[in-house]
């Protein structure tokens, strides 16, 4: 009788233990979702355009995320995983074109164009700049003496009234 109860106790404990172990392991797969997302964020779905891998809802994307998880579990580094994706699915999985061949233009054209624009502006300024005429231009501050302001305002106000009346 005692032995039976004893055995029963052990079985129960073991079962409970398995249950707890099971629950715990069901909670956070390793590598964790966050680790997968950290890499998936930087990759783009090869099928649906311009959607990052971590938010793409399709079955294919789910498979790719599991692939990332698997590779992470195997000990691959982030760069290795990215290279693998590029090899498998092409350069479009990366967020920016890899700087090879004509893709260099992506990174070169905007700064060159903006600098060219800045140069044009500079050139135009130099051509347009006239020496300051001392007589008709006073260096004006934007801290106008508050006293003159209201009187001028008053004047304008009265002028407006007059014109309105006519």
């Amino acid at each position: 009788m005692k032995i039976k109860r004893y055995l029963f106790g052990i079985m129960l404990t073991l079962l409970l233990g398995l249950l707890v172990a099971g629950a715990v392991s069901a909670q956070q797969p390793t590598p964790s979702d966050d680790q997968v997302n950290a890499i998936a964020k930087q990759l783009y779905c090869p099928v649906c355009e311009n959607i990052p891998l971590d938010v793409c809802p399709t079955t294919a994307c789910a498979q790719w995320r599991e692939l990332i998880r698997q590779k992470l579990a195997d000990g691959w580094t982030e760069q290795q995983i990215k290279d693998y994706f590029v090899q498998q699915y092409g350069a479009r999985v990366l967020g920016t074109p890899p700087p090879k061949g004509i893709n260099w233009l992506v990174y070169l054209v905007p700064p060159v164009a903006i600098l060219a624009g800045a140069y044009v502006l500079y050139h135009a300024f130099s051509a347009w700049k006239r020496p300051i005429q001392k007589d008709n231009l006073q260096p004006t501050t934007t801290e106008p003496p508050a006293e003159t302001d209201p009187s001028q305002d008053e004047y304008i106000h009265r002028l407006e009234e007059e014109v309105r009346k006519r």
Partner: protein
Amino acid sequence: MNEISTNPTEKTSQRVLPRLGRILAWVALFSLLVVVAMVLLQKQQGPVEVGQKAPTFTLTTFDGQQIGPAEMSGKVVLVNFWASWCKPCEQEAADLESVWRYYQPQGDVLFLGIAWTDTETASLEYIDRFDITYPNGPDLGTSISQAYRTTGVPETYIIDKNGNLAYVKLSPFTSQAEIKAAIDPLLGP
């Protein structure tokens, strides 16, 4: 409004600069239109058409085999693009395998399965599930599908013995008879 520049040198420099600017503007506009036109035309074109030379490629199968133009020459080649996550592909998978077993002994027909943007594990599982025996491999870098300008899966392209595209199917096959009807005319004498 209408400003007349009195200085002659200023005038010529003004005329030269606008001319250069004008030329640049027109060239830029023209190139933009040409580029857009080219891509538009290509998108309108759709997948590779019957009669055209089929794009060549080399497929590395999941077993590590290399199948290239040498292995494909002189044979009728059926190229099938599929993916494990593609539900319509499953409809034709069994039929394709059966028709392959029918033609295989003859030796002059080759079936190639190209897994498009798929993961190796899932692809192998798919191949296992339908007991597929013809060579299958991943579309590395999606280069093969880009060459054929596919727009999705499943799509099947049948190449005749001379390397020209003879048949295009942009949806799943509905029966084995349909597949055989496409291949038989190409077998020749």
